[in-house]
């Protein structure tokens, strides 16, 4: 940790730029006051931002924040950025990347005013949303109409669907509904050069907004997961599916913060899942049996969700961090498990049939159901999942420390074993930050079975103390090591299956191969003036040359540890 005391000086935009932006958004929607821009410097769960903050890196502060109200305003703002070569960063909730990406004065474009559900098309089962609409808002409206979007990420009321177009979109019901990628009909984007792109059928006059591909080569596919470097989604149309559960799901206002000493069980433990849904917890003797069972279940065609959770149950179902740690120490939750979500979508008899299939499989592989007669206290403790397997109605509730570094590799279900092995190796090499880091090494990684089990996603994480920058840096080390381990062991082309960011794009030329060269061409087409979060996803040759040698050396060291040659 740096001990040097220095004052962080906020950079300002040139006055003519500020003035031009003010004319577009209106004086009340543009801010450069220190108290405001500070807010946009630290919300991220990206460890690097916290370290910079600890080290008083002056580049952590944006110069200015603007809040547009419409696509036209976003377009005007982006055009100003192009005219004056001002980098901008799109921002919704700041849960991942929000800081400036260059040392130049940077504009944050925050979408909190663009928060309307534009339309819900019940006939063609889709909904069009502005970028600040979250899963909770959409589901509240869609469920009244017997529809829903097919899944929910962990932070229902924080995650905006439009920002998930740029980033992740992983749900517990991915078995049936697939990742968010499978559930987008179209986007309307302001591209980095200020042009407006619409995709799918929507780009043809009079066609309507119902079909996702084309025309011809599919640009929506290219644009997904650009982490804000390839344009700003100002409208997104998402697919809706039949919903057979309750018309609404109880929500706790403002969720519940992840505080050390909060203990308020009244928010937990719904007795049973939602109407027309049933949740089963299965326990196995070992990892091999768990994987065998999960493969059989995925291939049997039953269920809307199939996942395994290790340490997540500990910090998700505990009311305090102390309880989380105690449960980890005692191995309270089954180390080898899976949970299965059934739903009566087609018929009242569907769950009955699917339960029969599930019981047959568990019997065959030699697993056990948690029940009132077998480990009832564990089943009781897992009650928060009764609602939250569909939607995390309790909000962003994780009784753990900071979340920095996640390995999110992808592949056939057998790759869970490789993930576990490599995570354990990393823990042995670097040492754990917290007992919760053992999740995925001593028990199952979080496994999401995706798209009927054709592939799976595996998650293991580090939980450093956010007040200790050295811990965060150590977690970052896990991340860099992980990037190398993932590529080396066929766990994916990248650490996070959804996307890549620098320096990993350039420093892992094995992916593609040479994806960085390909992506540079794409960047040139979409962002000719390098204004959209420049350097975040792929460096230009010049940016790469200017990238700090010290960081290159760290990445190369991790490559070396995985028997991979250094990248110059």
């Amino acid at each position, binding site marked *: 940790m740096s001990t040097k005391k220095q004052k962080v000086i906020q950079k300002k935009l040139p006055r003519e730029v500020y003035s031009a932006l003010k004319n577009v958004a209106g004086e009340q929607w543009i801010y450069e006051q220190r108290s405001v821009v500070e807010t946009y410097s630290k919300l991220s769960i990206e460890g690097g931002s916290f370290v910079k903050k600890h080290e008083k890196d002056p580049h952590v502060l944006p110069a200015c924040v603007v809040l547009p109200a419409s696509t036209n305003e976003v377009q005007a703002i982006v055009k100003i950025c192009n005219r004056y070569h001002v980098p901008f960063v799109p921002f919704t909730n700041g849960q991942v990347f929000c800081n400036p990406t260059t040392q130049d004065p940077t504009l944050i474009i925050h979408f909190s005013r663009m928060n309307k559900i534009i339309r819900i098309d019940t006939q063609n089962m889709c909904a069009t949303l502005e970028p600040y609409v979250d899963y909770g808002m959409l589901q509240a409206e869609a469920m009244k109409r017997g529809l829903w979007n097919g899944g929910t990420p962990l932070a229902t009321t924080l995650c905006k669907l439009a920002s998930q177009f740029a980033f992740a979109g992983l749900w517990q019901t991915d078995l049936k509904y697939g990742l968010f990628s499978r559930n987008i009909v179209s986007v309307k984007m302001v591209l980095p050069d200020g042009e407006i792109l619409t995709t799918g059928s929507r780009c043809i006059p009079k066609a309507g907004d119902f079909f996702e591909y084309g025309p011809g080569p599919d640009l929506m596919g290219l644009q997904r997961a650009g982490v804000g470097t390839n344009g700003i989604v100002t409208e997104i149309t998402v697919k809706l599916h039949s919903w057979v559960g309750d018309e609404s799901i109880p929500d706790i206002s403002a969720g519940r913060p992840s505080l050390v000493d909060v203990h308020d069980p009244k928010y937990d433990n719904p007795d049973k899942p939602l109407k027309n849904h049933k949740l089963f917890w299965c326990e196995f003797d070992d990892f091999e049996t768990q994987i065998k069972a999960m493969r059989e279940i995925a291939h049997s065609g039953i269920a809307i969700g199939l996942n395994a959770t290790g340490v997540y149950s500990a910090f998700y179902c505990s009311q305090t961090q102390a309880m989380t740690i105690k449960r980890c120490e005692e191995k309270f939750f089954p180390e080898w498990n899976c949970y299965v979500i059934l739903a009566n979508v087609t018929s009242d008899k569907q769950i009955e049939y699917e339960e029969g299939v599930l019981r047959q499989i568990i019997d065959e592989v030699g697993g056990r159901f948690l029940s009132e007669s077998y480990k009832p206290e564990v089943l009781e403790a897992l009650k928060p999942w009764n609602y939250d397997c569909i939607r995390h109605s309790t909000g962003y509730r994780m009784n753990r420390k900071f979340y920095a570094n996640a390995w999110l590799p992808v592949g056939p279900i057998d790759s869970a074993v490789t993930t576990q092995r490599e995570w354990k190796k990393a823990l042995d090499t670097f040492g754990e930050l917290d007992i919760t880091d053992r999740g995925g090494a001593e028990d199952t990684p979080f496994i999401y079975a995706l798209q009927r*089990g054709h592939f799976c996603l595996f998650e293991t994480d580090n939980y450093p103390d956010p007040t200790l920058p050295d811990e965060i840096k150590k977690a970052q080390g896990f991340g860099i090591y992980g990037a190398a381990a993932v590529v080396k062991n066929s766990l994916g082309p990248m650490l996070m299956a959804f996307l890549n960011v620098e320096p990993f794009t350039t420093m892992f030329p094995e992916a593609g191969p040479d994806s960085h060269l390909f992506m540079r*061409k794409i960047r040139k087409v979409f962002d000719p003036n390098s204004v959209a979060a420049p350097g975040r996803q792929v460096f230009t040759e010049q940016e790469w040359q200017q990238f700090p040698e010290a960081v290159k050396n760290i990445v190369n060291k991790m490559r070396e540890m995985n028997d991979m040659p250094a990248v110059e």
Partner: protein
Amino acid sequence: MTILTDLKNILGEEKVFNDDENIEKYSSDQSFVQPRKPDLIAFAENVKDVQEVVKYANKTNTPVVPFSSGLNFHGGTIPKEGGIVLDLSRMKSIQVDDNNWHCVIEPGVTVSQLQDELEKHNLRAMLSFGVHPDRSALTSYAERDPAVAAASFEYGNELIMDTELVLPGGDLYRTGLWSAGGIPGSPMGPVRAMIYRMWTGAQGTLGIFTKMNIKVEYLPKKRKVFLLQFDSFPEAMEPLRMIQRKEIGHECFLINNFNAASLLCKKWKVPEQFPAEKAEAGEFDALREKLPPWLLVLCSNGGPRMPEGKIKYEEEALQEIFSMAHLRTCDDGPIEDMFLKEMLRPWGILKKFCYSGSVHDISFKTTLKRVPEFQKIVMEVINEHNYPLRDIGMYILPIERGRAVHCEIDFHCNPRSKDEVEQVKNLWHVVSERFIDEGAFFDRPYGIWADMVFARAGTYTQKLKELKRELDPNNILNPGHLCF
């Protein structure tokens, strides 16, 4: 040195041809797209061959047209600017992953070969209705031919996993898990989650697929087909919506009596060459008269375990809809059996080519509610062009539980009759234009549709052109197609 000599040096004597017979064969298809002769035909047997040819083409500014089976029917492989037709049909490897239900195929693998191989593993590929058994399976997926099970969100859509392709500059590129050089097994990455989709619907203009890992599904042990009859398409709309909202069945589609009669006609065979030979139509005519104007076909697939249980609850849910909507079923064992076969090997409908010899379809996407609008346009135009309504084939396929529908409207003509060809060509052109004007969405704009579609697509078209310039600066990959 000539291109012929150069390519023989690069690939070997036995892989390059420029004899008249071959040149003629690759210069046209049964579509209305203007025939054009290639300079020569080169056969690739592996990815290295493909890379070598593409690199050579860049050096000499020679167009390269990737070709796998030529059974596209829409002029997709006609070499508009001459050059090299790169025939990939000798690349025939199939590798089935029984554990994870994937299959890696090369471009020369036909859909029937794929299905035959998968059946040995108790698996099946999800294929498109009307796909030719000799069509390249890889091309069918790359060109987004909609699977006959497209109604099922989970089983009939997004069937591509990993891909291997040669970029316009000749570099090898992989997408999905495969892109790190190891095993295939996920569609995500590199760098962006769905990047492979950029090369779909691209007609080989942005890269040449050399391998593809596709999802495959279990081969159902038990299946049951349900048939509903309707006097008009609008009558079928609400029942179809109800069935799809309940998520009953995998395969579901509607066909009119022309197409149903083609399928059922025992005297007709699926042609091997196109245009086909016109065949005797007595049996077909009798069937067409007898069959209801529209049939809704629904197939319930029993799961791999307890298959009867799944069919039973789906059937009960269906019966509720039948009684609620007073629907007329069409209980006919032989017809049901025929459809069961078609779900797995869905090429019987190609017998329709026997009616006149050639078929010119207009295929597009719209919403269920709008289908009658487009039917009305067809009625208006055929009246103007004196084309008989009874000679139109129609196929309507709900996609993802009815969010969208894929429509195919066929016009038939005898390719040996210049007058007939001219009449249908004009009609087809006018209908296409009227459809696009009214918002029919041609997500795969082949031939003349390309100009009509891309002229309306604004920034989308502009960005495609910029991408093409950046990735293929010499414009060597299938030039003249799409908006390039």
